């Protein structure tokens, strides 16, 4: 039985895809008389199966050596593409996280999207999402990881584009796809180069190769940069970070997954790539620099947002920035730690704001207030999620950040400063959002705010409890530091930074009207942050402009220069102008005649030449 479950663990990603396929009769419109909810139930069922299967395999693999599962997918010439799966406790743990969050998000969607007739399509995409992510968690092959990352790009595009008739969705979906695609194509270049250099694409073989490989600095730098650009796009890091902001146009249940595990998938691949990235010091430095820029920049941008989803999504970029720093400094366990705790806490926060959005029909935090006493599950979820994210009370986020602070304490103290700043800004931002949304007097749009129905409340409460239990889980997994070795000053500093952020957020004057500061510099700073440092404008005048110009120039050249020259040479014009023009309106016999004459001349020529 155990062996059977292990041998068939490649089924785990397939369940999600099967669920997606099962929705087709409703999504395509073959079943029209009855509603689309069975499609949702099928997907929930498949997710549960996947969760149970994953759990059983996880139990088996716990404490055992990893048992790689090798599938020879495609062999041709000197290319052997194997799909290698890592059936280990880490991989299965990641699968469990993905499927569990996916289950909760789907349950949440059952309530959030209950009035959406395209429910089947939504669940199909969620199933696709889940399948691709569990595949990524298991993948031990860079080829498979790349393929699944691309599938995630596609399903992100389709999920963001779910409400395709909404004008902002049109651009958001496009930008999400193209931004990620830039990263993906660069990654593909890296994959192809790596495959050529090392002759394999399986991670264990690649690690072995990387230990002895000797590359020229240029090659290793280019390779390293190409490999990290995929995760940069996927994890919404500067300069490929804008899509996450825009992706908030998509449905909230998808945002739950996107901000917790989908971005984490990119980082997971990065962690897998880390032993190869060691080859390139430049890539490691790039990771640290970009991670730091994103962590601090996105934390600042988050503070200036008035849209509830965007206030949190920029914070996602910031936390992933911390993960990038950790990978850049070769501390992958810190990276995994941050990913895990961030995923759970952020998913909870997004559930909470999902129910706020549904109840108030608004995403503008300046229009909100006073929800606290009427929406207990939602309020508690937000508080617990926030506490679970920042380093203040000993929940998950605290321990993850502590791990980071402790790690950098002696070697790279300036990274400790970065962590503390991000923590303080994050605490500040969450306190600010909490005050605006839940405290204060009710406003017109929050005046009647009954708590959400059970389909949304149950996953929210479940995840609240899970978030509170994270330290216990960490303890079980021996991830918490031993009390005797605890770094006292680090704890104090971390708590202090969280407390400062909290205190500032609690005391600062908050405007509920979209009032602008009168002083020009302040106003400028607010706009700069609110509009994300105007990076999108920067793109418009550089990359987008360039592609647009080149393509127009090319098309012009093609039409007027090249084709013009052809027409000028006149072969076409003479024929079509004189002899053939006559027959255009006429009978097909004329065409045949023309052709026959042509072919006979050719034939005569041929015969003449041969003789």
């Amino acid at each position, binding site marked *: 039985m155990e062996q059977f479950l292990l041998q068939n663990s490649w089924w785990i990603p397939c369940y999600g895809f099967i669920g997606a396929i099962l929705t087709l009769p409703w999504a395509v419109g073959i079943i029209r*008389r*009855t*509603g*689309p*909810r*069975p499609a949702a*139930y099928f997907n929930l069922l498949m997710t549960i199966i996947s969760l149970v299967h994953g759990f059983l395999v996880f139990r088996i693999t716990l404490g055992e050596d990893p048992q790689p599962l090798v599938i020879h997918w495609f062999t041709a010439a000197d290319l052997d593409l194997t799909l290698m799966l890592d059936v280990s406790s880490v991989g299965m743990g990641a699968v469990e996280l993905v499927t569990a969050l996916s289950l909760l998000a789907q349950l949440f969607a059952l309530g959030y999207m*209950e*009035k*959406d*007739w*395209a429910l089947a*399509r*939504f669940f199909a995409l969620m199933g696709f999402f889940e399948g691709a992510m569990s595949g990524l968690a298991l993948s031990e092959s860079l080829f498979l990881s790349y393929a699944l990352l691309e599938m995630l790009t596609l399903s992100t595009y389709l999920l963001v584009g*779910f*409400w*395709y*008739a*909404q*004008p*902002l*969705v049109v651009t958001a979906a496009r930008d999400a796809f193209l931004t990620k695609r830039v990263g993906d194509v660069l990654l593909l270049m890296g994959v192809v180069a790596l495959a050529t250099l090392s002759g394999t694409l399986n991670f264990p073989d690649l690690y072995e190769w990387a230990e002895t490989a000797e590359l020229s600095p240029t090659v290793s730098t280019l390779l390293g940069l190409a490999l990290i650009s995929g995760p940069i796009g996927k994890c919404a890091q500067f300069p490929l970070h804008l899509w996450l902001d825009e992706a*908030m*146009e998509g*449905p909230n249940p998808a945002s739950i997954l996107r901000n917790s595990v989908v971005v984490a998938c990119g980082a997971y691949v990065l962690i897998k790539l880390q032993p190869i990235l060691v080859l390139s010091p430049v890539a490691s430095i790039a990771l640290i620099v970009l991670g730091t820029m994103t962590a601090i920049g996105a934390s600042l941008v988050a503070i200036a*947002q*008035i*849209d*509830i989803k*965007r206030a949190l999504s920029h914070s996602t970029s910031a936390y992933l920035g911390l993960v990038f720093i950790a990978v850049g400094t070769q501390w992958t366990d810190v990276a995994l730690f941050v990913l895990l705790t961030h995923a759970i806490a952020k998913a909870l926060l997004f559930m909470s704001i999902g129910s706020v*959005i549904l109840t108030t*029909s*608004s*995403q*503008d*935090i*300046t*229009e909100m207030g006073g929800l*606290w*006493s*009427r*929406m*207990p599950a939602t*309020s508690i979820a937000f508080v617990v999620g926030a506490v679970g994210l920042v380093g203040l009370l000993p929940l998950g986020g605290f321990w993850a950040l502590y791990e980071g602070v402790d790690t950098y304490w002696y070697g790279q103290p300036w990274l400790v400063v970065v962590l503390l700043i991000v923590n303080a800004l994050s605490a500040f931002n969450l306190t600010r959002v909490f005050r605006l949304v839940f405290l204060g007097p009710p406003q*017109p*749009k929050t*005046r*009647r*705010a*009954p*708590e959400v*129905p*059970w389909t949304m409340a149950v996953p929210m409460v479940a995840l609240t409890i899970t978030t509170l239990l994270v330290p216990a889980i960490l303890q079980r997994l021996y991830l918490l530091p031993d009390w005797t070795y605890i770094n006292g000053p680090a704890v104090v500093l971390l708590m202090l930074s969280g407390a400062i952020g909290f205190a500032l957020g609690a005391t600062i004057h908050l405007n509920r009207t979209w009032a602008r500061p009168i002083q020009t510099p302040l106003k400028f700073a607010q706009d700069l942050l*609110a509009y994300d440092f105007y990076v999108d404008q920067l793109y418009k005048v550089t990359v987008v402009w360039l592609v647009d110009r080149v393509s127009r120039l090319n098309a012009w050249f093609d039409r007027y220069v090249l084709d013009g020259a052809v027409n000028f040479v006149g072969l076409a014009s003479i024929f079509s102008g004189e002899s053939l023009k006559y027959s255009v309106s006429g009978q097909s016999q004329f065409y045949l005649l023309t052709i026959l004459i042509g072919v006979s001349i050719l034939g005569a020529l041929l015969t003449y030449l041969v003789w």
Partner: protein
Amino acid sequence: MVSTSNLSPSTHPLADIIYRLENGGALLPDSPENVMEVVGILKSYGVVLDAYWRNLIYISEHQFLVLFPFFKYFNGEFSIGKLLRHWWHNRINYEFAEYCMKAMLWHGGGKLDAYLDTQEFCDRAQQAIQAKLRGNPLMQGVSKAFPDFLIEQVRQMAYYSVLGQFWRVMSPIFLTLSDRYDRGEIKSIPDVVNHVLQGLVRAADKPITYAVNIRGQEYELIPKSAGLTFLMDAAVPYVEAVFFRSFPFMGTVSYNAQARQIPPEQERFSYGALYADPLPVGGAGIPPTLLMQDMTHFIPDYLHRFYQRTPRGETDLRVKICVSFQKSMFCVTTAAILGLMPFPADTPDPEQRKKNRIYLENWMDRLLESRLISVQVCEV
């Protein structure tokens, strides 16, 4: 027809429609096809509303403060067959009734909204809550920590009941309209309007009350003494919340706060039944699809044949139903407008006619951006 010559011509962009109303017409132009469409669609709407109100009343009475209302759409009749049909989604989409209820609750208005904020209501609600929570220390604790939590739920329950009571009156009006049409008594759009108007007038002073029975004890949450009546406290807020304001559809409007597509004031919301674009119906993020879907099952044969003659036949049924539905809702709105008009439409007094004119112009201002113009010409 009464001559309008003693009034100066209106300068309103919709002056033609104002004159039509003053002369006993309706917002929807009169034509046999329109009558057939409107009556046919109101027939199926009546059937759907009948299911909706029964469920709303059932929930308000029997699912009062039930935390996990798994079977709230079952109306108390549970069987395995029904459960399977329910899971197969072979059922009325009661979610849409709740959507309308949420619109009324959220937009408020009328005496009901004000009453729900009074101390009297809070006391009554608190009694019912205490009764319900007896023997449940956990929920008692939650209720203590979050004092407004359950009261807000009771307010929502009140709206369940009020909307149920409103539709309980409206459903038979539409069904008898269809019967009278079948008997040949309804021949024009003004006949339709008049039928609805008579129904509204008859029920206008019907009291709106709400009580629940908890463990054999009756708890009056909205007593008769609150003085809520059908027309002013259910029908008018309903028209305002559902016909005019409603919620922005996620499928067509961005909720992004920085994009500012949604007005900050609820009064400026115009996403209701009279405004919504029928074309995206059936797509993602368009809740009225649920209602149109429910109505597909009950449209009378003559209307179904009419739809099948259009180019797309069955495939765009829900859009066509939505177009017809909007036409019929303009008839209902006409009835409401005429019913609330300060003076009778055919009054000879110029002063009164002037006030009527101003009243109508105010309505037209609100309808300027609605689908009113599009229903003037026949476009399915």
